[in-house]
C-alpha cells in the first residue's frame, strides 16, 4: 500500500506542466467545459419537455439507449472519426469534449424532466389559477420544486464526465488519467496508483461541493429539512419531494 505514496511523496512530481497541480487543473477544465455544455443543452430541453409534456417518450427512449453505449468505445470512435479533420491543437480535445458532453446529457436530462414532472400537480394548478403566466409557473413554482432532482442529475453527469475524462487520457488528453496511462507504459505502478487516488479524491470532493450547493440552494420546504420542529407527521396535503436518488455513472 505504501507504494502509492512514493509517487505523491516526491516533490518533483508536484511542479511543472506534468505535475500534479497542472494535471488537476486540466482535469477540472475538461470537466467544467463539458458540464457547462451539458447544462446548456440538457436543462432547457428537460424543462421544456417536463413543462409542456411533449416529447417525453422520445427523451426517455434516447436516454435509455445512450446508456447502453460503451463510453470508452464511443470516445475512441469519435476521436478517430473527427480528429483527422481538425487542426492539431484541437484534434483530440474537441472530439473528447464532444463525447463527454454526449455521455453527460442523459443523466441531467432525465433528472430535470423527472423533477418537473414530480412537482405537485395541485401546486401547478393553483399557480395557474392564481393568474401566473406559463413562464411564471415554470420559474417560480416548477423549477424550485424540481431542484433536488435536477441537481442530483447534474451531480451524476459531473461524475460521469470526471470518470470519462480520466479515460480520455488514452486519446492523448491531459488530466489525471495521464498518470495512470503514463504510469502503465513506464511500468511505474506508484504513478498509476497516484493517478487513481487523485482522481478518486477529486471525484469525492466535487461531489461534496455539489451536495453543499444543493443544501444551500434548495428550499427547506422541499427537502424537509426544517430548523424548527413541525407539529409532527400529521396527514398532510403537501407532498415534499425527497432529495434526488442516485443516477448511475461510469
Amino acid at each position, binding site marked *: 500500500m505504501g507504494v502509492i505514496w512514493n509517487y505523491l511523496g516526491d516533490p518533483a512530481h508536484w511542479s511543472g506542466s506534468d505535475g500534479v497541480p497542472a494535471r488537476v487543473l486540466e482535469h477540472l477544465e475538461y470537466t467544467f467545459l463539458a458540464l457547462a455544455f451539458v447544462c446548456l443543452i440538457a436543462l432547457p430541453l428537460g424543462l421544456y419537455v417536463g413543462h409542456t409534456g411533449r416529447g417525453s417518450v422520445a427523451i426517455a427512449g434516447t436516454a435509455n439507449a445512450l446508456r447502453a453505449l460503451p463510453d470508452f468505445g464511443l470516445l475512441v470512435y469519435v476521436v478517430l472519426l473527427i480528429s483527422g479533420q481538425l487542426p492539431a491543437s484541437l484534434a483530440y480535445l474537441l472530439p473528447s469534449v464532444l463525447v463527454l458532453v454526449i455521455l453527460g446529457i442523459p443523466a441531467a436530462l432525465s433528472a430535470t424532466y423527472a423533477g418537473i414532472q414530480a412537482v*405537485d400537480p395541485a401546486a401547478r394548478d*393553483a399557480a395557474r389559477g392564481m*393568474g*401566473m403566466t406559463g413562464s411564471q409557473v415554470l420559474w417560480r413554482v416548477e423549477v424550485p420544486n424540481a431542484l433536488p432532482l435536477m441537481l442530483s442529475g447534474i451531480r451524476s453527469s459531473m461524475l460521469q464526465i470526471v470518470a470519462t475524462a480520466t479515460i480520455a487520457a488514452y486519446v492523448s488528453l491531459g488530466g489525471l488519467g495521464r498518470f495512470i496511462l503514463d504510469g502503465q507504459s513506464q511500468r511505474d505502478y506508484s504513478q498509476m496508483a497516484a493517478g487513481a487516488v487523485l482522481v478518486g479524491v477529486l471525484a469525492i470532493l466535487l461531489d461534496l461541493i455539489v451536495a453543499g450547493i444543493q443544501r444551500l440552494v434548495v428550499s*427547506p*420546504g422541499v427537502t424537509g429539512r426544517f430548523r*424548527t420542529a413541525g407539529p409532527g407527521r400529521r396527514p*398532510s396535503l*403537501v*407532498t415534499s419531494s425527497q432529495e434526488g436518488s442516485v443516477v448511475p455513472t461510469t
Partner: protein
Amino acid sequence: MIKFDSVVKRYPDGTTAVDGLDLVAPSGQITVLVGPSGCGKTTSLRMVNRMVEPTSGTVWLDDRDTASVPAAELRRGIGYVIQQAGLFPHRTIADNIATVPLLLGWDKRKAKQRALELMERVGLPTDLARRYPAQLSGGQQQRVGVARALAADPPVMLMDEPFSAVDPVVRAELQNEFLRLQSELDKTILFVTHDIDEAVKLGDEVGVMRVGGRLAQLATPAELLADPVDDFVAGFVGRDRGYRSLGFRAAGDLPLVTEPTVRLGADQAEALRAARDGWVLAVDEDARPQGWIDVRQLDPGTTVGPDLLHRGGTVAKEDDSLRAALDAALSAPSGRGVIAGGDGRLIGTITAREVVERIEAERSAGVPADTREPEPAAGSRE
C-alpha cells in the same frame, strides 16, 4: 355576479361535460354547485377563470365577458381555492399567501403585512408565518389556501371542494369559520362540493347538477329540501329531508316551561322536592345547565355530585332552529328539552310534543317553508 349563459363544454372525444348551463350566482352570496361525479360541477367552476375554455356560450363576471380579458389577468382578480390546497412547498406560509399581491406588483412590505393580517383572519397563529407547508396539518394548510385566495381582496371566489380532504371534525370547524368570514366579507362565491350536507349548510343558493352537465334545480336549501323538482334531486338530497328542513325554521316563541333546578352539591332531599317524573335538572352557580339527575339513583343522605349527571341531552339556544329545539327534547333523558339563552343560562324546557304542535300549527297557518335563519353550529352539549 357570475353568470353562465348557455355554456357548453364538449371534449374532442365527444363527451359533453357541461350541456347548456344557464346560471346566475348573485353578488355577495354563496352559490353551491353540487352533484354526483361526472355532473360537470368542477368543469363549470373552472370555466369561470378559464382554466377550462368553454366550447360555446359565455361566462360573465358582472358586465364583463370573461373571454375578453387575458386569462392571467382575469385570474388575478379571482380567488381560487382547490381541494388539495396546492400550496407551494418551496415557499413559507407568508410567502404563499402573499403570492397574488406580489404578482400584482404590491410593495413587498405591504404584501407581507397583508399576509399576516389574513393569517389572523382565517384563524392561524402568526408564528406559523415562516414555516413551510409540509410542517402544517391538513386543516392548517386548507386555511392557508383560503387566506391565499383572499390576499388580493378579489370580489369573486371559486372554491372546488376545499374542505373535502380533511377529517369531519376539522371540516365542520372550517365550514363554520368560512361562514363567519363570509359574513364579514360578503364575497361572491361559487362553491363546488359532492356533499349535499355541506351544500345545504353553506349555500345561500344550491344548484344540483346531474351527470351529463345539466342543471336539475337551483333553489335555496330550504326549498330544495321541501320541494325537490324530480326523483333524481329527491334521491340526491337524501333522506331525513323533513327533519333537516327544520333546521331552517326559527324556533321563535316556543311555550317554555320554567324548570325547577337543583345546584350541584345540594342534598338528596332538595333534589327529591324539585324533581318531576323522577328527573331534576342540575345547574351551576350561574344557572347554566349541567345535566339531568335521576332521583331514583340518589341514596338518602348523599349529595348531588357530578358523577351522577346524565349528560345526554343537547341544549338549544333560544334563537336556535326548530330542529335544535326538537333535538333537545328528544335527547333529554327526562323528555324535557333544555333551552338556554345566549349567555348559556337556563330559560326553560319544552317537550317534543309541544315542538311538534308548533310545527303543525305553522303548517295549517300556511307559514312558508323557507323562513330561513342561518343554521348555527350544532347545539352545545351539556
